């Protein structure tokens, strides 16, 4: 359906996310992290979630707050351990959360595959490492590859800069990161943006995420966290 739903609140935007859902959460550290949607998801109460995100939370905000609320069963991410990942670290060491570490490029490419209808792909990353365990290996043209499968989300929660009312998105700088890929890989893509504009306002040559990938939009007041985590 073409015209994305424009919602009044982050709470309305995350309505219906079920217990046990797989949720792709944008952001690289704090850049691009959809804080308002995550806070709304905490209020909404869905639990037993599988979260796919580059990190496993920074400081006590965003994803870290969702983890602290006990709503997450499993995290797929490339880099959980950071100087400010104390929430995840404690849960993991207490055996209260599952972790699947995925190389960052594979995380992105596996979500791209999900969005692009690719059944699986042979990737050279991680060959010969512990992360290759259990994966099918094939030599192609003299190079060794591992078979990687798509990662599909039930929902994607992402942050973007500007949306038009059809759902076209542009991002800001490196806050773009996983947003465009996650938008393609989820059944329902929910976006928080700084601004919603009329169709025709965004240059069609500069659209990063075309409207077809966007289901729900909420405009939020930009919040600025310091880069290393605490509010």
């Amino acid at each position, binding site marked *: *359906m*073409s*015209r994305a739903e424009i919602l009044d609140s982050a709470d309305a935007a995350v309505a219906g996310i079920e217990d046990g859902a797989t949720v792709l959460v944008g952001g690289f550290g704090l850049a691009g992290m959809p804080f308002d949607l995550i806070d709304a998801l905490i209020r909404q109460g869905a639990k037993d979630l599988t979260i796919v995100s580059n990190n496993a939370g920074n400081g006590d905000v965003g994803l870290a707050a969702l983890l602290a609320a006990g709503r997450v069963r499993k995290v797929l991410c490339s880099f959980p351990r950071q100087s400010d990942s104390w929430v995840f670290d404690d849960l993991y060491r207490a055996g209260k959360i599952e972790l699947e570490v995925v190389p960052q490029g594979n995380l992105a490419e596996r979500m*791209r595959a*999900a*969005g*692009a*209808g*690719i059944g699986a792909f042979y990737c050279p990353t991680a060959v010969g490492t512990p992360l290759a365990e259990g994966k099918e290996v094939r030599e192609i043209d003299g190079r060794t590859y591992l078979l990687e499968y798509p990662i599909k989300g039930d929902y994607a929660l992402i942050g973007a800069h500007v949306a*038009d*009312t*059809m759902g*076209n998105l542009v991002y800001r700088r490196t806050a773009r990161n996983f947003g465009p890929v996650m938008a*393609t890989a989820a059944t329902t893509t929910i976006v928080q943006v700084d601004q919603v504009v*009329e*169709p*025709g306002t965004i240059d*069609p*040559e500069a*659209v990063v995420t*075309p*409207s*077809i*990938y966007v289901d729900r939009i909420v405009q939020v007041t930009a919040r600025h966290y310091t880069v290393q985590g605490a509010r």
Partner: protein
Amino acid sequence: MTTTTADRAYPGPPRSADHRLSMDELAAVVARDIPAGSFVNLGIGQPTKIADHLPAGSGVVLHTENGMLNMGPKAEGDAIDPDLTNAGKVPVTELPGAAYFHHADSFAMMRGGHLDVCVLGAYEVAFNGDLANWTTGRPDDIPAVGGAMDLAIGAKDVYVMMTLFTRSGEPKLVPRCAYPLTGLGCVSRVYTDHGVFDVGSEGIRIRETYGVDAGELAQRLGITPPHPA
């Protein structure tokens, strides 16, 4: 798998028109059946006409596989830009809210199942939804597939728009395709000048008839009549 209407429940008699439809009338029928707000790819040729029949405010967004969403009508006069064409290389226009993307992104969109509806022409469609629309397979026919195979497996619903019979009167909706296939079991509905059909794994079912009785149509296609004549 080829089945007939006998294999599934039939909800009632088909709607009908009192005459065989022209291709333009048929385009209007297809346009009517496209849900408001759908993302749609219209194949080269007859399906292109469907765009002219989409009601204003339908919110239907047209995708063209050469890299655009929210394509507008055919360009005329000064609006012609050689850098803006549809998949048939016909100059077109851009609507507000359009987006351009490259070919890999465009076909990822298609293959990833994000389009709601795609309407294609066909040489033949089988009762099970198999599609043949890319080559006759004759020795003198230069094979050219374009985006047909990608479209066939990409959209959530693949509709075919075609005449029901060849010029010599042979049905193009058949138990099994004789022409080389474009895709397996991919078509869900077939719009023709004589009627509209659901096809697929549950077999063929007549939805509408135009200028012909459903029983007679069933007989000409060699399928079980939908209901007692």
